[in-house]
């Protein structure tokens, strides 16, 4: 059983990458908008479906075909990916304008409740438009490559790589750009940010945009990894996402990154002992453990 460990850890890096991308966005909105967004998983689903829609469109038009080497996708994925990120970001900002903005002064739990409503609306709009049957990103069986003693498919290496790149981008953004610093400032102290003259509504829009774009990326990568997507994709990801955010510490996007990886690895390693159906239960177990032992998470402050 233990010989499988390195392989499971490798799989954990892959699913951890997907969870991390979702968890970062969740952590950002949590720390800047001060509520747990239960619709975040469905933003991942939205991104996955928008990309899929464009992929189907390109296939139908007979353009941008082919694949990149051993990867399961080709040039079509580039515009599909970017358009999906942009589309999801715009949608999230729109939802904020219509719903959460009107609840800015309400108790945080009202925003939480509203986000549950948004989650059901998003998911069922997708269900209405695309149906309940899964959509396929690709059907080809992939050969695995041997790297450092574990087997990984080219797609999986890509997922880990892209997630790493996006994480680095986010770090640079938060550390060196004016908007990034303002986001950190707002997470620290929203009232002071107002007093300082920071245009808080604009920063909030940026937060939604970035968080949603990262979620969309996570959703698309999940589609690439699982080869298919269903409308339940995001809702099922909610537990691991929350587990990652709480494990890493609310208010710390870097914590969310670590949390995402840890949850991913825990889930995969657990398959050596428990049925794969119970992966979300593992994430939940870790979540409860953290809430009992150390509610502020590994890196959290409050």
């Amino acid at each position: 059983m233990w010989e499988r460990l390195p392989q499971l850890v490798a799989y954990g890096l892959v699913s951890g990458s997907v969870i991390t991308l979702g968890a970062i966005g969740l952590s950002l909105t949590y720390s800047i908008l001060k509520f747990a967004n239960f619709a975040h998983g469905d933003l991942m689903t939205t991104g996955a479906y928008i990309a899929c829609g464009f992929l189907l469109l390109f296939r139908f038009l007979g353009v941008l075909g082919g694949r990149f080497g051993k990867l399961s996708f080709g040039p079509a994925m580039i515009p599909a990916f970017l358009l999906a990120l942009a589309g999801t970001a715009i949608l999230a900002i729109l939802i904020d304008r219509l719903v959460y903005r009107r609840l800015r002064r309400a108790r945080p739990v009202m925003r939480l409740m509203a986000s549950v409503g948004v989650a059901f609306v998003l998911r069922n709009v997708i269900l209405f438009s695309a149906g309940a049957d899964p959509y396929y990103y690709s059907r080809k069986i992939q050969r695995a490559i041997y790297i450092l003693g574990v087997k990984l498919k080219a797609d999986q290496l890509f997922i880990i790589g892209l997630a790493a790149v996006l994480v680095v981008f986010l770090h640079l953004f938060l550390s060196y750009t004016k908007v990034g610093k303002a986001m950190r400032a707002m997470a620290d102290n929203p009232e002071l940010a107002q007093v300082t003259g920071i245009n808080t509504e604009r920063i909030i829009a940026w937060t939604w945009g970035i968080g949603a774009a990262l979620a969309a990326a996570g959703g698309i990568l999940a589609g690439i990894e699982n080869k298919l997507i269903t409308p339940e994709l995001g809702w099922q990801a909610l537990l691991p996402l929350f587990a990652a955010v709480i494990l890493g510490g609310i208010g710390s996007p870097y914590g969310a990154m670590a949390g995402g990886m840890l949850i991913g690895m825990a889930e995969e390693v657990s398959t050596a002992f428990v049925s794969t159906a119970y992966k979300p239960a593992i994430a939940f177990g870790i979540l409860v453990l953290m809430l009992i032992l150390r509610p502020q998470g590994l890196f959290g402050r409050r």
Partner: protein
Amino acid sequence: MRLLEARDIHSGYGDMEVLHGVSVEVGKEEIVTIIGPNGAGKSTLLKTIFGLLRPHKGEISLDGREVTGFPPHVLVRLGMCYVPQVDNVFPSLTVQENLEMGAFVLRGDIKPRLERVYELFPLLRRRRRQRVGKMSGGERQMVAMGRALMLDPTILLLDEPTAALAPNLVENVFQSVKAIRDSGVAILIVEQNAKQSLAISDRGYVLVDGRNRFQGTGREILENEEIGKLFLGG
């Protein structure tokens, strides 16, 4: 006509009115201190002037222009900056990043402004890469004031800048306030350390139960026996 005029301000929180018709004025490059017992409404007055609270009645004008009810991010552009009493820095940002946030509304190069603040507070230059959360109370107060100065305001509102500071640091704060005034900024201070604040002030106001009780030059208030017994602690 004064730089800042607040006339007959009625303001409060929700349905509760705290200020029942208060008026204050601040002239160019003046230091004006507001003192009074707890609950007199001093902080409420500052928040109302800065647009964090909407007055039920009354007018506020800055440089002759009506600014009643203007929100903070507009007022900072008009030259009024505010330093709250608590939570007045961003703890997880560095000193320099805190100052940069002060100049958020500006485009373009803010280096000259950073330079000016560092001149005023050399300690901040030395510590500019340090996370403010790890700094002491006195140092944080400096960061808070420096942040408010980044926009080159014509008037600075300070809410109890020496609260919770050790006595030796309190003197530093008042020295800084004088230096800030000397660089061309008017200052409206709300203070519990009434004596020391009045000592450096041109004028002062005494607020009790949300109303003006007394006003005069800093010296007049300090020498007034009645007030002295009530608020200045003898």
